[in-house]
């Protein structure tokens, strides 16, 4: 007789569940239901002014509000042909590294570590491994400090704006951030040791990695995306590469990229070859064999390496900003014109694309946001099925726990995934 096992996803941002349909012990199919209520951002943005778009759209997600804001600013600037000053570009790069630090630290130490230590969550962690939690929170705090100091507010930053900045980050603040970063650099360099042992699951399919091509010096965006197997596509033409369809049981759209179920995020970035900071590169060289050609379980280790990379890069960026002449803000005022623009950034959990069209008055005529979780949805579903089939006959509780742990390896952000415009 058929049976359905349902598990609700916890320790992820947003709401979702997994349903496993079984015939006896045989797994027939698996449904990944990302059920956050659609907030319909793309439809809400139509009719709003270009000035409002970045302010509204960063609210898609709190963890990634910084990168959503930056991607939106870049896309609007792309539409109006605005080039920002070096100080602005470096400041944006710095806040993005702050976002990377806080997000990876939160995911690794607060949401994922309980799985490794066999406790159900934060409270258990505070009891079983208070020092580790303290270390993780200290790292996260520095990522937050960068975002708050640079962005003027930690979540939904306000200081980064179209064409420039509200206020230049002062020398005193930069030196303070430098000091704070130095205090957690040792922890960031050691983090990878905690996340080296992957969960003992049956082997999963290997990912089709997708990431932004490496950015040029100090930039946070690039004109092309790269896929495994030597394929690539221009960000401006992403609509031809990314195919989306609506699923009856999920509010996130199912995407295929160049015909494949793509995987985005830390693992994908490292597999496709990014330039890393000195220490992060040294760690990567040491553990490369545990990441390359491995399944999604390697993502946690990849995130730990990126945590080190982000902290070291943030230090470099602070030094570069300290070298900038004072008063070199160089804000540009965008002049609205009819046109469209797209931009792609690497959010902590993977590739993010924003695209907008405007009329001659700068009123938004269309908006499209492709989020990492929506991109990953196909791969998550594929891996869930493989894992469930690999564990047929196992105890149900054991299986659902494994499924949830695997999903968490993707670091999904469900609230961000559920609003993709119909192509």
């Amino acid at each position, binding site marked *: 007789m058929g049976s359905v096992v349902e598990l609700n996803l916890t320790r992820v941002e947003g709401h979702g569940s997994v349903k496993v349909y079984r015939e006896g012990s045989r797994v027939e199919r698996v449904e990944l239901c990302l059920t956050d*209520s659609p907030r319909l951002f793309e439809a809400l943005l139509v009719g709003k002014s270009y000035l409002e778009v970045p302010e509204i759209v960063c609210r898609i997600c709190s963890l990634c509000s910084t990168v959503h804001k930056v991607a939106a600013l870049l896309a609007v600037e792309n539409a109006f042909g605005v080039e920002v000053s070096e100080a602005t570009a470096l400041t944006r790069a710095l806040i993005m590294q702050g976002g990377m630090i806080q997000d990876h630290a*939160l995911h690794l130490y607060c949401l994922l570590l309980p799985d490794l230590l066999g406790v159900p969550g*934060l409270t258990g962690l505070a009891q079983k491994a208070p020092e580790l939690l303290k270390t993780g929170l200290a790292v996260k705090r520095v990522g937050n400090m960068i975002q708050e100091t640079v962005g003027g507010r930690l979540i939904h930053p306000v200081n980064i704006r179209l064409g420039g900045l509200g206020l230049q980050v002062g020398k005193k603040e930069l030196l303070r951030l430098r000091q704070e970063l130095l205090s957690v650099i040792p922890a960031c360099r050691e983090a990878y040791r905690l996340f080296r042992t992957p969960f003992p699951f049956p082997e999963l399919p290997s990912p089709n990695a997708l990431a932004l091509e490496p950015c040029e010096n100090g930039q946070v965006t690039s004109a092309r995306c790269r896929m495994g197997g030597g394929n690539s596509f221009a960000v401006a033409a992403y609509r031809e590469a990314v195919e989306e369809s609506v699923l009856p049981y999920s509010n996130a759209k199912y995407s295929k990229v160049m015909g494949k179920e793509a995987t985005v995020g830390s693992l994908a970035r490292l597999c496709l070859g990014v330039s890393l900071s000195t220490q992060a590169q040294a760690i990567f060289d040491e553990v490369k064999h545990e990441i390359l050609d491995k399944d999604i379980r390697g993502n946690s280790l990849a995130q730990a390496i990126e945590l080190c990379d982000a902290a070291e890069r943030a230090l470099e960026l602070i030094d570069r900003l300290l070298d900038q002449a004072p008063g070199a803000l160089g804000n540009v005022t965008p002049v609205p014109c009819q046109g469209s623009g797209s931009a792609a950034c690497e959010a902590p959990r993977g590739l993010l694309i924003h695209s907008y069209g405007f009329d001659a008055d700068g009123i938004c005529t269309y908006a499209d946001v492709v989020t990492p979780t929506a991109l990953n949805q196909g791969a998550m579903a594929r891996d869930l099925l493989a894992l469930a089939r690999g564990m047929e006959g196992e105890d149900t509780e054991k299986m659902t726990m494994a499924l949830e742990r695997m999903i968490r390896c993707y670091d999904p952000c469900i609230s961000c995934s559920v609003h993709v415009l119909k192509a």
Partner: protein
Amino acid sequence: MNRPRLAIAGLTACSGCQLTLLNCEEDLAEVAARFELVSFPMAESVEGGEPFAAAIVEGAVSTPHDLANLFRLRNSSRLLVALGTCAIFGGVAAMNNVVSVREELVAAVYGKGEKKGESFAPAPLENFVSVDFSITGCPPEKHEVIALLSALLSGTLPPLATYPVCTECRSRENLCLLLERKELCLGPVIRGGCHARCPATGIVCEGCRGPVREANVAQELELLLERGFGRDEVERRLRRFRPEWNYGQRR
């Protein structure tokens, strides 16, 4: 010691209000020690069951599932706290409530016929249940969340700002963006408590904390119209975090 049992839940939102609690890094261990976090799906995988001393709820109500969850929380909690602008006013997801038809918005995103009737226009908690206390903000300020938790420990509720953003902005001696730079700043009608975060970095108040008590909306509108802003533009900006405003005699 009898630790208060807390439920922390998210409805339709970006999880930013819950994240604000997780961002209180220095207080988190203390919070975990002093409260029983019996239901907190964003950070805990087990449910400790009802009843709760307090349920702290973020997000607007926009699905039958949200509504069922809200009723469950209300029925099993002594206090129900609305955390953040979405829970109190509907927030950004509700900005078009008075100007668009929900079905059309859904069709624009998912296509006609898909996802029909699975969600409704986002609404504040108060439309469905009684709310005992509210902390506004998109996201709320950390100090306000900690003030709430501290107050709960002593069986009371904290005092929060009842004055507009302008009060704090003036005490920080910022340039007035509305009068001196003639920008579309909503500070006069928006509830303070954020220490005028945005105007202090030279950026207009976008109104994320919702209306201050006794907001003189008609006067703000008058000021903005005099400065050459269009009525549509002003209304659109006011609606960003709260769909419905009472424009008084300027209607």
